[in-house]
């Protein structure tokens, strides 16, 4: 009997809550309140991929960023099929595509059955027009994330230079 009451009053974690919890951990959406996160959630597309299904191919126009809510994704360099990274739940990839439509620099393949969220560039632009305040917050965070990656790349280049010169 007590189990029934516990079940009734236990706060249920809905699908939406799971998505919001994942979004909160994404650096681009850092500092956004739940109302703003819900606005982001409204423009996200949820997709399901089978094991070994390609999410996008290297060279295709980049149109959006993907967030993993379930499963693992391999980032592969073509044509040698060299694995560049393995991404897990809560990771995101393709964020540069939110800024331009330059071709994808690698392919993304679902390693397991996966559930992903896609933030499409034109939907983000539309959101920025509708809610400029929120748009500025996202763009600032996006610039910071890309800046951090650029710094990391610079460090790698410096290290490689040192190795090459030595």
């Amino acid at each position, binding site marked *: 009997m007590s189990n029934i009451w516990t079940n009734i009053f236990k706060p249920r974690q809905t699908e939406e809550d799971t998505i919001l919890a994942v979004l909160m951990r994404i650096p681009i959406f850092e500092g956004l309140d739940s109302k703003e996160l819900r606005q982001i959630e409204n423009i996200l597309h949820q997709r399901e991929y089978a094991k070994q299904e390609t999410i996008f191919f290297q060279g*295709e126009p980049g149109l959006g960023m993907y967030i993993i809510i379930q499963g693992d994704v391999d980032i592969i360099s073509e044509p040698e099929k060299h694995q560049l990274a393995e991404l897990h739940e809560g990771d995101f990839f393709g964020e540069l595509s939110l800024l331009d439509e330059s071709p994808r620099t690698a392919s993304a393949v679902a390693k397991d059955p996966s559930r992903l969220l896609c933030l*499409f560039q034109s939907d983000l632009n539309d959101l920025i027009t509708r809610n400029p305040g929120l748009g500025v917050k996202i763009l600032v965070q996006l610039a910071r994330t890309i800046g951090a990656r650029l710094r990391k790349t610079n460090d790698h280049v410096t290290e490689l230079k040192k190795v090459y010169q030595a």
Partner: protein
Amino acid sequence: MDKYLNRLIWLICLAAVFYALFHFISTLADLVKILIISSLIAYILDPLAVSLESRGMSRTSATLVIFLSLFLVISAVLVVVLPALTDQIAAIQEGMTPEATAALVSRLDSFLTKKLAFLGVGELNLPEKLQKTIVNAGDWVFSHFLDVVGLLTHLVLIPFIVFFLLKDGRAMKKQFIRYVPNRYFEFSLNLLSKMDSQLGNFLRGQFIDALIVGTLSTFALWLLDVKYFMLIGIFTGLANLIPFLGPVAGVMLAVTVSVVDTGSFVAAWYILAAFAGIKLLDDGLIQPIVVARSVHMHPLLVLLVVIIGGKFFGILGMLLSVPATGFMKVALKESVLIFRRYRMA
């Protein structure tokens, strides 16, 4: 040889598909017409909704505010313009008594026979020809405009559909994308987004252009003291949606009314000059500013689509055939462009 045979089979299949599509559309003509008009209105109103959203309103509130404002504006316009329009329509009806019409037609008959004698024009028998035309036109008007039930259905259905397209259009698009296979997901999203922005610009441009040309024509005809200036002005604005043919139709109507009314060509020259001026202004100033990206079409294609539009959807089909073809042209162009980029990958 095989290559040509394949192409021929392809063409026959394509023609069969188009025929089946047209047959299907003409069967559902009324519903398609309502949906097309509603989508066009929703497209035109969308930037207003976005602008209200950017001021902190929810989409539902924005849609409600737009509908309320539209209701007020239309009511105000009706209060101001309707009496003048009713007077003009009543004037046409009064002037169309059998005796007056017969006298007018005989006057026109003798006028034309006299003026066009150098071209070898003999007896025109206008009264007899007009009698036949009136019978046909009467049937046409009865079947097209006096369908009160149909008109009321449209008046209720169109705002209803526009409301939900405006409020839930984004969610509908998202729902549609859910059913697209993963492989074509990004391609479809890209295509929809490009078509959305291009078509939105095109349709809004056409609408604003028609509004400006209609207002300028009405004003010019009022200055020139042409009878039924408001009706002709509205007609010219709407006809402007059809390139090449529309402006000519507006001028012809205005000139005919003026010649029949005054019995001389003097005012017609002023009307021609005024319409030429408006056309120049439209081509040189209004269109480049308002119509962000015009869809260029060959005059022959315009003529063809206007005839096809008229055949399937009547007057409304003729007016909407060019924007609808523009829609298809943009959709096809964007599909090919995006498809090529994906194939190159």
